């Protein structure tokens, strides 16, 4: 069923009796050509592009709980491509271009809103670093503009411009950045993949891999064995847990990242802003809540809830940037589990086990990467060669010394 404005009007006049479930609820078959483990944004996008762009069939997405119940439902919905390094920037710019056409492609209102993202500058050294970053973005075909204090004041008059310690001295803007309705991304990809014949199997937990003579033959699940020619892990946050079932150790630690949303307010924050003196980012959702977050908790965790010191730290940063934030009441806060890789960049690669593939290590940047991650992973699964924009995301970059270390932190996952 195609969604359209006309369809909404027709259904409204006929008692909304014509709507059908957006995807089927099939029983798992005994085997598939492609098994994607993880029904989040990346897994569903991978299934969709495998079917749509690479013409593959006999595809299943296995999800332990319900689709979209993990990190695609727990992020702060920001999309952007303001990266510096060669291994990253082309990939994220490709992702942003896919976001721009996503709703027409999927026939689904994902509320892609290119309201712009602004990284604030507080020191001269930061201005130099952000100018360099902006130039790297432009060289890779993205948009970037350095804004003056007056330009920022015109759009965000309520910021704390004259702070004694960290005055605002300018900002790096990417006008094509913005926000997307995060759940709708999972639902849109699920519906589109399902209509191309992909089996989305929920409540189906992978409990082990069947590996013989160095080849993966399928997965043991809570609903029985399912054979698979190519098995693809796509469970960022739980990658180490899943891959340990194949006796793999990963260059990843799991960390909890908290996010916060206030009560609904009238429109006050037109775009996404990030604080340059502390770690704080904020946007306003279409329902009016201010959505914000900051640093991860910084220790290994699978708990999906954080601790109070980081709550205090994030709120202090927010108050330092937007003093008016103190007048808003916090409505909800939650935590999501991040795959923190050793260099802060992701992995999309084959493994040493034939037929077993890996996508993970997204740190806290996975949401914006969803379309490109799906496309590049689908390319790898379909062709056994890396996509041109994901050639750097290899497992062996750590062994070979080719890390993609955006922050220059080294092997300190809790600092990326």
């Amino acid at each position, binding site marked *: 069923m195609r969604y359209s404005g006309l369809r909404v009007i027709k259904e409204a006049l006929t008692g909304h009796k014509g709507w059908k479930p957006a995807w089927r609820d099939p029983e798992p078959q005994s085997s598939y050509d492609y098994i994607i483990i993880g029904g989040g944004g990346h897994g569903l996008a991978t299934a969709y592009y495998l079917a749509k762009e690479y013409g593959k069939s006999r595809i299943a997405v296995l999800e332990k709980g319900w689709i979209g119940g993990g990190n695609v439902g727990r992020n702060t919905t920001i999309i952007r491509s303001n990266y510096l390094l060669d291994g990253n920037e082309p990939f994220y710019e490709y992702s942003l271009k896919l976001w721009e056409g996503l709703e027409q492609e999927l026939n689904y209102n994902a509320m892609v809103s290119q309201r712009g993202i602004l990284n604030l500058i507080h020191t001269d050294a930061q201005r130099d670093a952000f100018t360099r970053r902006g130039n790297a973005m432009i060289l890779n075909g993205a948009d970037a503009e350095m804004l003056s204090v007056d330009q920022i004041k015109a759009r965000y008059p309520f910021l704390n411009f004259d702070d004694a310690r960290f005055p605002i001295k300018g900002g790096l803007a990417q006008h094509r950045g913005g926000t997307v309705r995060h759940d709708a991304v999972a639902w849109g990809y699920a519906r589109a993949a399902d209509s191309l014949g992909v089996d989305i199997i929920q409540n189906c937990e992978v409990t082990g891999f069947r590996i013989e003579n160095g080849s993966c033959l399928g997965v043991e699940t809570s609903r029985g064995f399912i054979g698979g020619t190519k098995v693809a892990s796509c469970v960022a946050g739980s990658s180490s847990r899943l891959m340990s079932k194949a006796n793999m150790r990963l260059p990843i*630690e799991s960390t909890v990242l908290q996010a916060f949303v206030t009560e609904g307010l009238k429109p006050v924050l037109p775009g996404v802003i990030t604080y340059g003196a502390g770690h704080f980012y904020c946007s306003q959702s279409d329902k009016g809540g201010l959505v914000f977050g900051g640093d991860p908790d910084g220790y290994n965790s699978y*708990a999906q809830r954080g*601790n109070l010191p980081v709550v205090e730290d994030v709120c202090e940063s927010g108050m330092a940037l937007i003093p008016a934030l103190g007048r808003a009441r916090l409505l909800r806060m939650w935590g999501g589990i991040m795959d923190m890789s050793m260099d802060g960049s992701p992995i999309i690669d084959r493994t040493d086990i034939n037929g077993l593939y890996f996508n993970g290590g997204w740190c806290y940047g996975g949401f914006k990467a969803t379309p490109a991650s799906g496309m590049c992973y689908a390319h790898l699964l379909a062709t056994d060669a890396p996509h041109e924009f994901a050639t750097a995301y290899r497992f062996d970059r750590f062994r070979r010394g080719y890390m993609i270390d955006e922050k220059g932190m080294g092997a300190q996952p809790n600092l990326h």
Partner: protein
Amino acid sequence: MIINHPLLGPRDAQEFTFLGDASLIDRPDWEAENAAEQFYEYAYLRDNPAGLHRELWFHETGDRSWLVVTRNTLTHEITDVEMASDVARSKGRSK
């Protein structure tokens, strides 16, 4: 989280900084035949378990001692705290 320091008693985890898996104590021998491979695994690969995790915490704003904390990554419950120097000595590493 409260970390029960073996010398100082219960201290707020905010006083500490986190390094990571306590296996970082087991620094490989740089003269070993396969030192490059061992250092690759040492520096980059982690068990990253869901459940009990032995990990290094540094009492940065306290007595600046290193601790080995056994903590459940599913609940954040801390079940054991040892001085990292004791752990290292028991492995014959520290003098």
